[in-house]
């Protein structure tokens, strides 16, 4: 069994985001870029499945500019068997990415495609659902637990929904998107970093995959969220209750 995992290169989770002065986007120059944390979780899950003997190969895929190779190297150092880089400098929206994944799935024929539930840069939370739709595969989104039955070719997925956990069974092949509590990703150890250097990364362009990148969305403006107002220190419990009742209107 083969598992394909999407790994996106995004502005590092811990970087303080700055909006460009012309409001067309956020500053990415000279900013630390890392693997999207949800993608890390997706990759970790794939590696655990492989280590438990249920899969034989994990293929990591990254789509974007040439530096995505660094993100792929991280994935390979974590343990992926090989990488695929679809190089594109255009701005990519979820539908284009989903179309690229459909093509790659046709080429690679994985049994499972695992993605992060969203990327922390655009917070779209769409790609997994779109690619499942395009492939006509079942999907288990927001996974907090994944159990595979290789013989029956079924994946049982616990999903984190508003009122608790929903458990769904998916016939393979299927799409899974990962939530935060699914697992804790491993670190890249030195021996594995060394091994990763000799693992292959295959290159494609969207044209080679016959995917036309269409900007079906237009970004009108990017602005910072309003600044939080400074708090006040109340002098007594009574004052606090008064403020909660009359100013915050919460009690």
């Amino acid at each position, binding site marked *: 069994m083969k598992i394909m995992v999407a790994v996106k290169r995004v502005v*590092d989770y811990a970087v303080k985001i700055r909006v460009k002065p012309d409001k067309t986007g956020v500053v990415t120059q000279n900013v630390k870029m890392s693997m999207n944390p949800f993608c890390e979780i997706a990759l970790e899950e794939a590696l655990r499945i492989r280590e438990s003997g249920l899969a034989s190969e994990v293929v990591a895929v990254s789509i974007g500019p040439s530096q995505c190779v660094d993100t792929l190297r991280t994935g390979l150092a974590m343990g992926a068997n090989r990488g695929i880089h679809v190089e594109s400098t255009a701005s990519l929206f979820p539908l284009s990415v989903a179309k690229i994944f459909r093509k790659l799935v046709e080429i690679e024929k994985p049994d499972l495609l695992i993605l992060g539930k969203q990327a922390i840069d655009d917070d779209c939370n769409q790609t997994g659902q779109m690619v499942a739709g395009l492939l006509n595969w079942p999907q288990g989104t927001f996974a907090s637990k994944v159990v595979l039955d290789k013989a029956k070719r079924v994946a049982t997925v616990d999903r984190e929904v508003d009122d608790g956990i929903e458990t769904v069974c998916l016939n393979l092949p299927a799409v899974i998107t990962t939530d935060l509590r699914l697992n804790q990703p491993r*670190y890249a150890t030195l021996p594995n970093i060394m091994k990763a250097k000799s693992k292959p990364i295959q290159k494609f362009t969207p044209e080679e995959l016959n995917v036309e990148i269409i900007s079906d969305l237009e970004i009108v403006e990017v602005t910072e969220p309003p600044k939080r107002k400074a708090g006040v220190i109340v002098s007594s419990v009574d004052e606090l209750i008064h403020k909660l009742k009359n100013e915050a209107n919460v009690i």
Partner: protein
Amino acid sequence: MARHNSRVTLRFLLSSFPDRSRNPPLLPSATATFSSCFTTGFDEKRRLLQCNIVREDQQVFSFFKPLRNFIEIKQWGVGIQRKRYGSLAGLVQRNPRFSKLNDDDVRYFEGILGNKNVVQDEDKLVTSNTDWMHKYKGSSKLLLQPRTTDQVAQILKYCNSRCLAVVPQGGNTGLVGGSVPVFDEVIISLSSMNKIISFDKVSGILVCEAGCILENIMSFLDNEGFIMPLDLGAKGSCQIGGNVSTNAGGLRLVRYGSLHGNVLGVEAVLANGTVLDMLKTLRKDNTGYDLKHLFIGSEGSLGIVTKVSILTPPKLSSVNVAFLACKDYNSCQKLLQEAKRKLGEILSAFEFLDVQSMNLVLNHLEGARNPIPTSLHNFYVLIETTGSDESSDKQKLEAFLLGSMENELISDGVLAQDINQASSFWLLREGIPEALMKAGAVYKYDLSVPLEHMYNLVEEMRSRLGNTANVIGYGHLGDGNLHLNVSTPHYDDKILSQIEPFVYEWTSKHRGSISAEHGIGLMKANEIYYSKSLETVQVMASIKNLMDPNHILNPYKVLPHSLTS
């Protein structure tokens, strides 16, 4: 105080209240020092001198029996009841030459500062009277919060004329009992002097008031694309004035050097109220004696630092952090030598911890996770590189690490792939002081020791103490700075007498320093001879007499009690 800062301080505070009662301040144990006079290789003069000090002090320092009393600590609305031992006051004698505070004094200060900045509220004073480790506690009745240099000058001039003793206080994170009163000294807090005065983007020179909190300066600089040349675990509370006054070292010293190099100017107020304006923003200035250096590391005993100008390096975009395992101390040392050669200009930190430190952090610090869980190793090293080119820096570091692995200097290791991972590696090193506080009582020693012998001390201490204590060693290996810490469930005089004076004698014998970066404070005032010659200390005392003839500034600290009382 910035909101953020109080949050960090609060975390420190809450974490530093273990359920056990705390011990009396660790004053140099008189009898132990006495016996040392006959056992160490000190030269004759020093020996005699030490014996004298001890004889003199012995009348005062009866070998203490802890007196327990209850106090209630209330801060930020958190009320915590704690058992604690008696204060230092029983061990050092209050200098009778100092006046006692009276109502006229308070009125005078209110006239200068306004009522709001003259604090007599007991609850508020508890915080300022107690040090970070809850080991030293004074009984000051007055906290002053000046807002300008001129107010500091007026306060000191008055205190000097009245012979009222004072303690300058920054963020109160000092680890040697220097920042809290011993008796009823007036506390002069610099917290309200927290303005950034100027920043020159071309030269990277920052001028600010002494009460600026280190972390606030760091985030100010971050927005400008610069960093502070020093960084330490207490950054959320400590102030630049306190850093300068203790000549704090910290995590970036290996790269940027000490504050003696980075501080370009200081404005300080002398005991008689004279303001010394040495607030230059020049890198080169050879005009006479460079007096600003007297205020770097003198722990508030020569004057109050009110403003600082400091050279800040540009923030470089590529930071990498590796966390490595080594099988023995020798490998750590060799790794350092290699790192200095092969990483050269990008090496920005080289820290080490032993497996005992690692276990302590894993057991006591929430969120701590062993990055190399496969097996426990004897030593761990954290290496940070900072440079300007992400891909070449990473290549260089990886090549170095892989090479060191092949040479078996490293037995295993991980390389942070994002900032979050880097922070979690740093937590293991920076979290040790906090973990120690949670583990119970702690005896802290901050030593400079020639690298090759450094870890022998930890091992010798371990065999001395057997299983009565957990002896851990960590520190800034890149600077030859060992933090030797002895963790025990409770403070215990028997254990203390096993540690001191042995630890000081050992350090002295190996030509080390008994204080690499924390300073002398109250804790080591009588131990200074272990690292400085009699003649040197005498010149120090003359300087003290010249600059503060009434000895009102931070009394009982830094210099031996026999020379100052």
